[in-house]
Structures are given as structure tokens and as C-alpha cells.
């Protein structure tokens, strides 16, 4: 083989096609051997993600022209530091979800008879990797649809009436978002004659209709990322899905359309229409933080609370955007740190909540008294994840908040710092409320019949997210290979 650097571009293609092929094989093999094939595919996906991250860390940004056709005619896959980090996030959460689903699918558990979970799950993972790595706007549309269908099918696989209702509204919201994005792509292609992401900023520069196209694309992505006020479909979908699915959706899927939105915003900066767009998105983000936290506090069910907290945390990712223009490096690092630590923490919370709901038979707060003692691992995971939600050191979220506060004060947009800090306090309210109800003394002493399942996968996830600061150097080294400032 040629010196290792030459094979790096191929890794990008493999990171998408291998899980896809594993999913197809897992489906073809049918009920008996679907899980085994899928777990192999998952292992390969984790290895490939690590390999991509390693090659970006050592050799800088990597790109692959598929079929060796150069864009704009061909499609390019590109991995800079940020997409490599998101790939690693997908790998970590993916591994935890696969392990938890494997543990949960011992005979008798609810996932066992739904073997189709495995191929659907691998298709979702492959599509998320595809969206992180693609540098072609129409290819991103196909990835968005792939994500949409697999997520909807996974949410609906729970089978309950609530899950089916949530899946239907999720599907139509996702279709509306994807179609709006597609119309935007059509307009941008009309005006610019290119579908390549990195050629977009020069293309968008001159023509007003390309800017309308870009606006429609961003509107579609805002709907897919569930930024307030387009968040209505997320709480019911994420709270009524099986725990492993909710972990993947809140942990990784929501961030995939966010990363594409950031790429488009960087392109829009080139066109000079960046500031107005970013301020509106940031304002929506601020409202999302307050609204999400308030609804999380008001919800009577653990999973619904966690889902609303996702709406709030998505708000953080958007509130930082106005600072991206003049302080791209620091804010880029903040985005990476926050996305990674929140992704892992939220996945851990949903896996733990799934375990708690199993133990108590329901996830209503008033029925959770004393479950903390029965499920210590789940309670500990919830606690550790709470460290990230609140943004306490040494979590990655703390580092992200610190960087954001620093750069917002330096650039005079102090309201962003206020919102970020306020959000942390609001998060404290609903996290403590959840922990308190878990650790309360049970008034009834009758023995529950705990189902034999422990959220072993949740604990490491929560621990890593709570101590992500230690991985700071590696993350900033990867971010060095990222350029988020508009050209």
C-alpha cells in the first residue's frame, strides 16, 4: 500500500458505505443473525470513525472526489476537524446505543422481537456519517431523507399509540423540512450552476435569488434541527421512542443538520448576508433555551423532560453563531465542545431513563420515588450527565460556555453571555428536580419486580461527557484543521 496518508481519503467513503452494507446484510440475514451482523457493522463504523479522526489530526483536512470526478460535476466528501469530531461523537454514541440495544434484546425484552431495529439503526448511522462528511448540497438532501425515514421507522417501532402519533408528526415535519431544503438547492443551482458546498459562497455572493435559496435551505435545516419555533415535533418523538432510539436522535441526529447549517452560514458570510441571518437564529436560540428549560421543568415525565432539555441545548448551539464571524477559532472550538459533551450526556440520560422506566413501569416523576436505589447505575449516569447539562467543570459544556462568555464579552454582545449562563441555572432546576424524585424515600415499601437490565452503556457515556475537558488538547488539535471564518 502507498504511504498511509494516501489511503486516508478512502476512509471517508468507507465510513459511510460500510455501515450501509452491514445494514443491508443484516436485513438480508433476517431475524436470527441480524444482530450479529449489525454489531460487526457497528464495530467497523467505530473503527473507521477513529481512523478518519486520526488521519485528520495528523494530516489535516481530508477530501475524496467520488469516482474521481472533480466537483461541481462530481460529489466530494470532505472531513475537516469539526466533521471528524462529529463523526467521533456519532461513533461513541453509536457504540453505546448498540451495546445497550444488544443487552436489552435478551429474550423477553421489548427489542428482541423487533429485529428490524438493527438494519434501520445501521442505516441511520450511515446516513448521519454521510451528512457529516458530504460537501455536496444535493447529496446532503438524500442523506437528510435517509435520516428522516430511518428515524421515523425507529420511533414508530415502539408500537404504542403515542409512538405512532409522534412518528407521523415527525415524518411530516421532516418531509416539509427536506422539501423546503430541496427547493432551496434548486434555486441555488439555478443561480450559481454549482452544487458544491465550498463553491457556494462565491456563487451566493452576487445573486439575490441564490440568497433566497440559501435562506430556504436554512429554513429546512432549522425545521430538521428543531430550533424553536420549529421544535413542536421533537419532544413527543424523542420521549415516546425506544430509549436507544431517543439516545441516538437527541445525541447525534439533531446535530447532523446543525453542522450542515453552520457550513451554509459560513458560505453566507462570504455573501455578506451573514450577520442578519445569524442574529435571527441566535435570537431564536435564546428563546429556545428559555422555552425548552421551562417546558422541561413543567413536564411530568422523565423522558419528556429530557426531550425538552434537548430543545434547550439546541438553542445553545445557535445562540453562539453571531460570534462565529470575528472569533471563528474560539467559537468553533466551543461548538465542538458543547456538541460533543451534550451529545454524549443526552444519550446517557435517555439510556438511563429507559432503564428507570423499565424498573418503575412508567417514567412519571410521581412514581419514581426510590427507583434511584434500585437502579444506582442509571441514577449515577443521570447525575453525571447533569454535570454537563449545568455546564459545571470539568465537563466540555463548561469549557464551551467559558469560551462563549469570553468571546461575547470581548465582542460586546453581552446578551449572549447572559443567556448562556442563565440557561445553565435553568438546567440546574430541572436536573435537580429529576434527581430529587429519583432519590426520594419510597412511601410504599412493596417490592417492585425489577427487570434484570442495567444501563451499563449509559455510565461511560456520562462519565466521558462530564470530564471532556481532559480531552481538550486533542479536540483543539482537530479544530486547528478547521476553517469556519468566511473566506
Amino acid at each position: 500500500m502507498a504511504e498511509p496518508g494516501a489511503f486516508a481519503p478512502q476512509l471517508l467513503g468507507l465510513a459511510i458505505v460500510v455501515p450501509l452494507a452491514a445494514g443491508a446484510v443484516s436485513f438480508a440475514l433476517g431475524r436470527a443473525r441480524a444482530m450479529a451482523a449489525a454489531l460487526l457493522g457497528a464495530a467497523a463504523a467505530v473503527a473507521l470513525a477513529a481512523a478518519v479522526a486520526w488521519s485528520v489530526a495528523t494530516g489535516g483536512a481530508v477530501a475524496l472526489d467520488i469516482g474521481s470526478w472533480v466537483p461541481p460535476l462530481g460529489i466530494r466528501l470532505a472531513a475537516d476537524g469539526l466533521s471528524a469530531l462529529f463523526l467521533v461523537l456519532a461513533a461513541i454514541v453509536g457504540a453505546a446505543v448498540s451495546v445497550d440495544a444488544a443487552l436489552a434484546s435478551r429474550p423477553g425484552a421489548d427489542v428482541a422481537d423487533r429485529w428490524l431495529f438493527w438494519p434501520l439503526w445501521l442505516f441511520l448511522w450511515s446516513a448521519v456519517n454521510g451528512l457529516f462528511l458530504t460537501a455536496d448540497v444535493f447529496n446532503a438532501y438524500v442523506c437528510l431523507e435517509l435520516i428522516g425515514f430511518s428515524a421515523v421507522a425507529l420511533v414508530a417501532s415502539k408500537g404504542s399509540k403515542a409512538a405512532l402519533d409522534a412518528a407521523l408528526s415527525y415524518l411530516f415535519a421532516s418531509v416539509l423540512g427536506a422539501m423546503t431544503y430541496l427547493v432551496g438547492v434548486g434555486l441555488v443551482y439555478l443561480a450559481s450552476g454549482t452544487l458544491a458546498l465550498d463553491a457556494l459562497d462565491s456563487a451566493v455572493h452576487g445573486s439575490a435569488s441564490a440568497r433566497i435559496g440559501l435562506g430556504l435551505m436554512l429554513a429546512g435545516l432549522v425545521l430538521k434541527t428543531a430550533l424553536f419555533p420549529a421544535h413542536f415535533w421533537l419532544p413527543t418523538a424523542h420521549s415516546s421512542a425506544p430509549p436507544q432510539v431517543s439516545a441516538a436522535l437527541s445525541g447525534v441526529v439533531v446535530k447532523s443538520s446543525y453542522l450542515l447549517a453552520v457550513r451554509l452560514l459560513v458560505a453566507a458570510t462570504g455573501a455578506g448576508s451573514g450577520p442578519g441571518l445569524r442574529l435571527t437564529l441566535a435570537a431564536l436560540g435564546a428563546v429556545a433555551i428559555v422555552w425548552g428549560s421551562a417546558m422541561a421543568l413543567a413536564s411530568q415525565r422523565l423522558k419528556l423532560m429530557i426531550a425538552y432539555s434537548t430543545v434547550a441545548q439546541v438553542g445553545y448551539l445557535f445562540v453562539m453563531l453571531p460570534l462565529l464571524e470575528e472569533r471563528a477559532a474560539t467559537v468553533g472550538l466551543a461548538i465542538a465542545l458543547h456538541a460533543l459533551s451534550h451529545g454524549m450526556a443526552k444519550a446517557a440520560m435517555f439510556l438511563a431513563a429507559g432503564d428507570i422506566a423499565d424498573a418503575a413501569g412508567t417514567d412519571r416523576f410521581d412514581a419514581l420515588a426510590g427507583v434511584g436505589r434500585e437502579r444506582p447505575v442509571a441514577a449515577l449516569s443521570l447525575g453525571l450527565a447533569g454535570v454537563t447539562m449545568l455546564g459545571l467543570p470539568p465537563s466540555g459544556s463548561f469549557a464551551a460556555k467559558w469560551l462563549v462568555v469570553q468571546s461575547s464579552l470581548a465582542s460586546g454582545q453581552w446578551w449572549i453571555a447572559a443567556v448562556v449562563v442563565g440557561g445553565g441555572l435553568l438546567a440546574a432546576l430541572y436536573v435537580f428536580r429529576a434527581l430529587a424524585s429519583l432519590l426520594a424515600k419510597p412511601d410504599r415499601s412493596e417490592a417492585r419486580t425489577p427487570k434484570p437490565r442495567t444501563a451499563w452503556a449509559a455510565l461511560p457515556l456520562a462519565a466521558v461527557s462530564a470530564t471532556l475537558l481532559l480531552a481538550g488538547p486533542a479536540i483543539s488539535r482537530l479544530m486547528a484543521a478547521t476553517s469556519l471564518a468566511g473566506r
Partner: protein
Amino acid sequence: MNVAVLDVMLCAGLVWCAVSALVKRDLFASIVMFISFGLLSALAWIRLAAPDIALAEAAIGAGATGALLLDAAGVLARGDGSAAEDAERRTPRSANVLGTIAAGALFAALAWALLSTPLDAPRLAAAALTGAREVGIANPVTAVLLDFRGYDTLLEVAVLLLAVMGVMALRSGAPVSVASHAADPLVRLLVGSLAPAVLLAAAYLVWAGTSSPGGAFQSGALLGAGVIVLGLEGMLQPMRVHPGASRLLLAAGLLAFVAAALEPVAAGRALLQYAPYARKGVILAVEGILALSIATTVAGLFLASSVTPDRGKAGRP
């Protein structure tokens, strides 16, 4: 290409069918209007010199989609259709007004963007046409679909397989089963005599795909429609569909495409970079397997979802 009377009538027809498809009270009537919209849009594709798309639209857009909608309307109108109809009457005035204003604003923005952009910019036409000649594929659309942007098509085949898996998951994992009920003798005669012609046409579409309009999707949709009609008339009864085989057939298209994509990587070339000498052969092979897979998918999507317990009164008593 200036505006002809046919264009004006076609556009008026399209808008009228679309509006009535959304506004008509009776669900069945709105679906019929949507199917006629699909056929008119197939004509529109011909007027816009896009024969490949006209083929796909007629087979998939009006055909398979129309069949799926009619089947769903049949079930839903009996099931919770009434509840949904009441729900519809309850959409608050404000939502209607807000929705209309938003849609109007969207139309204004789109129209202004279209009017302010020179529609006749060169874009990628030249590059794609020269590339297709270079690669030796006479039909440039197939060249773009399977070579320049072959990765898009790979993911799109995955979307189709995903749709079948989703439908199967929603029927709690039941394998693709074949509906069967009393068949109309006249239709059995017609379908029986047409079946070989459908098979021949599908094979021709795959073979011709590289040089003239056609290709895996159009041929797969045509073959799928043929299988649906055979299935509905219960003429597939003798061929018990073994679940394992049907799953393999469904996944075969994607697996073949992935194999064709990964083979170059093993040989040191980029993903989906066919070897020049084998390009046409590989593309034809992939298109053939793809067509079979898409036919099974189209038939599977319809037959799997149309087998509902109370599928009573179809065909003569």
C-alpha cells in the same frame, strides 16, 4: 422555446388538478385529481424535453403513488378516517389564514427569485455532456445518474430499501406476503397476455438505459406495477414467496451497487471509480440487478401494506 397554447393549457391543468387535489371535500375525489395531476405532469416533462423523467413520473408518480394512495384511502376512510375528517373541520381559522399567508409569501419569494435570475445560464450542461461523451455513455442522464453522481443513486437505493424495511417494521416484521382474492376473469386474461410484454419492456428499458431514455428505476417501476397487478389478481399464488428469498431480492440492488462501489477501493482507485474498460459492463450489471430490486420494492411496498385483515369486497362476489 416560446410559450405554445399547449403549454398554457397544460400549466392551467396542472394548477387546477393540484388545487382540487388539496381542496376537494371527498378524499377519493382528491386522490383521483392527484393521479390526473401525475399524468399531466408526465406530459409537462415531455414538453420540457425530459423523457427519462416522464417515464419515471408515469410509472412511479402517477402509477405506484396513486395505487398506494387509493389503497390507503380505502382503509383510512373506513378506519379513523371519520375522526380525521372531524379533526380537519376543527383546523382553527387562524391556522388556515396563517398558512395561506405563509404560502403566499413563499410563492412571492420564489416567483421573484425565478424572475430575477437568468434562466438560461449554462450551469453544468456542457461539463456533463462532454463528460458523458468522454465516458462513452450516450444517454447523459444515465451517465450523471450512475457515474458522475453515482453516490447519490447509491444512497437513493438505500432510501428505497429503507422504505420497505420501514413498512415491514410497521407491519411488525411480517414478511412480504401476496394478497389474493377472487379475480375478474377479463382482467386475468388481459394481465396474463400482457405479462410477457411487461417483462420484455422492462428488460428493454434496462438495456437501452445507457443510450436512450430508460434505466433501472423506470424499468423497475414498470416491472413492479406488473407484479402488483398479477398479485392483486391472485395470479402469483403458486409462487409461494419465501421470506428469506424476498429479503435477499430486496437487498440485492443495494448490495450489488455497494460491491461495484467498493471494488475500485480494493483495486486502489477512488470509491465508485469504475475501471474504464469495464465501465459499461458494470453499469449495465448494476442497473439490471437494481431493476429487479426496485421491482420487488415497488411490489413489496404495495402488496405488503395492502394486505389488511378487512380487505373484503374487492372484485366480483
